[in-house]
């Protein structure tokens, strides 16, 4: 029986490789995906789906008056950021970053941008 199995696998080597490749890729992908789902978010339970950023991954950005729509779109694209609220009373926009984005370093980098006038961490994060 083992000989027959060996013969079968030998004749179907391409199928064997495709099967192993698919299984290896899917297993690794599932494990990483599940690991990301269960990764602890800062102070909040993780939620499924695209918008799984916690409250602490938001910044309040004030854009320069001379910034064009294209400048703002390009800047937000470069960080994968989305506007979730604004303009507020200070003409600031609440911008959500991805969970993997280091907040303090990103805020420091954004302050140097020619498009940004001011950057403030969201109030709930300042005490951390």
């Amino acid at each position, binding site marked *: 029986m083992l000989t027959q199995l*060996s*013969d079968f*696998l*030998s*004749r179907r*080597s*391409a199928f*064997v*490789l*495709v099967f192993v*490749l*698919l299984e*290896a*890729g*899917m297993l*690794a*992908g*599932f494990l*990483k*995906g599940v690991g*990301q789902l269960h990764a602890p978010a800062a102070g909040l339970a993780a939620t*499924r*789906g*695209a*918008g799984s950023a916690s409250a602490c991954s938001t910044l309040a950005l004030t854009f320069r008056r001379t910034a064009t729509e*294209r400048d703002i*779109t*390009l*800047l*937000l*694209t*470069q*960080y*994968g*950021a989305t506007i979730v609220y604004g303009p507020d009373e200070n003409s600031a926009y609440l911008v959500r*970053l*991805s969970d*993997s*984005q*280091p907040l303090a*370093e*990103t805020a*420091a*980098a954004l302050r140097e941008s020619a498009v940004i006038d001011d950057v403030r961490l969201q109030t709930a994060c300042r005490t951390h």
Partner: protein
Amino acid sequence: MRPPIASPRQAPPLATRLMPELLAAILLSVASCAEYIGLGTQATSSLPGSQAVALGAMMGVLTAVVGLIGIALGGSIQPLISGPRVAATVLFSNLLATLAAQPRLAAHGLPALLGCAALAVAVAAITQLLLAAFKAGTLARMVPAPVFSGLLFGAAALAIESQVQTVTHCALEWPPTLVVIAAGLAAHFGWVYGVGFAARRGYSLPKGLSLFWTLLAGSAAYYAVLGFTPPAADCRTLGISGFDPGGIGSGAVERWTHTFSLLDGAILAQIGVYGALIGVLASLDTLIAIANIESSTHARAKPNRDLLMHGVLNLLCAGAGLLPVVGSLTRTNMALAAGARTRWTAILHALLTLALILFCSRLLSYVPKLAAAGVMIAMALDMLDDWSKLITRLTFSDMQPRQVVAAAMWLFVTVALVTIVTGEPSDGFAAGCALGVLPLLWPPRGLEVRIEVHPARIDVGLGGALLGHVVDRKVCEPLLARVVAEPGCTAIEFDLRALQRVDLSACKALIQFEALLRARGVAVLYRLKPDSPAGATFAAIRGDQAPPASFADVDVDAGNAGQPGNILHMN
């Protein structure tokens, strides 16, 4: 009967070739644009933001345009179709993922990450330029064949892993995701099966169109289910904003100076290793594509000049923030099968592809991200090369001697496993190279080569150990030079009876060299001792890989084991 000496084909005048070249270019564009989009989306799959996918698609298409025009104008042999390739792009994508995990770099967004990745492309370019300058294209061929096969397998698994993460993420929010992916993959395998079915009935269909059908079927399935339930925000279409060239080229000088200020020793070392690996892999892929054109068109290429051109193009791509340019065997084969014979196919294909991005970006913006993910999964499954299938087939067979097959299989599995587990192709490659050196620790290690030139024949005697890392340098290159210098040479006879040791990489290199010689009208004959392990191994691999041998004048006399005899004539 003496086989005719084939003369290299001459390039025909453009006026007679324009229509066939245009038709080949159209077919190539339809088949390959899906590949360029899929590769680009794979390259930026680890970057934050839903627009990163469209940015990647644009990078993939623009890389193809640069590669096609550059090689069409400066390559030594045509039609060589260059552009982004799966293995190099997966390495690029892994590097981006590694860099994105560094807080210092991630804090500065896409410009910093793409800038660092572009540095790796520059290192790859410099690697290729060095290989060309020192005429060391054969250095890349010294790496054992199972190592490259294992690396391709591991890279393919990482590509599938990356796309499965995306698919899992979308499927949890929007179950019809699986319908879209299944439709795309069904179209891919259906077309591949259809090509085989048609071939058995005497019809020829272009296999490369499978990715186009994958993209089309996936997109159709997406829009079919869209009406029932809306997808999650990250799982919709490519969109138009990512096709803004400003995403790549704005403030290039500022971006580069800023990027350099963020680098430290550890990041530079990482970029250097990835860049060198991309350079070696890209060089090998390119050399394989060139060898294929040589055997198909009977023309002689200048591999070092082509490596030089690819190095220059990759420097351009690094400056522009694009993907590495690599010579593509599959697309080149597709072009040849479609009737391409000159550089005009590549040029017309580049113009059509450029028109797509300039005038049809609105159309491209409607392509679903999940359909592009399906294309990438299909491409990853196609990454399996013939030698990984051969090693697997031999492992489950009863071919003797078993240690030769086992050595190759262990090397293949180790490289693939290390690559998949660590997520770093460079780790797998390093492990493979380290393991590949082990067989050199025990004798015999050296190869003795004896070449005798006769009026119409060259006799080559090989003794000792025929291992993969010496075949090109000690056997193939010198013989090819003699064949070119002696136009009257019609046959080469290899005497392998004194061989004590052989590995699968050497068998592969010798068989490929035989195919090249046959294409040039030179017959190849072998003298073997069937009862010796080395002879038995080579005969088994050769019999599996090449047209069946006709046995003539075979004298299997056990009492004369030490006498000259046991000749295998192969025509």
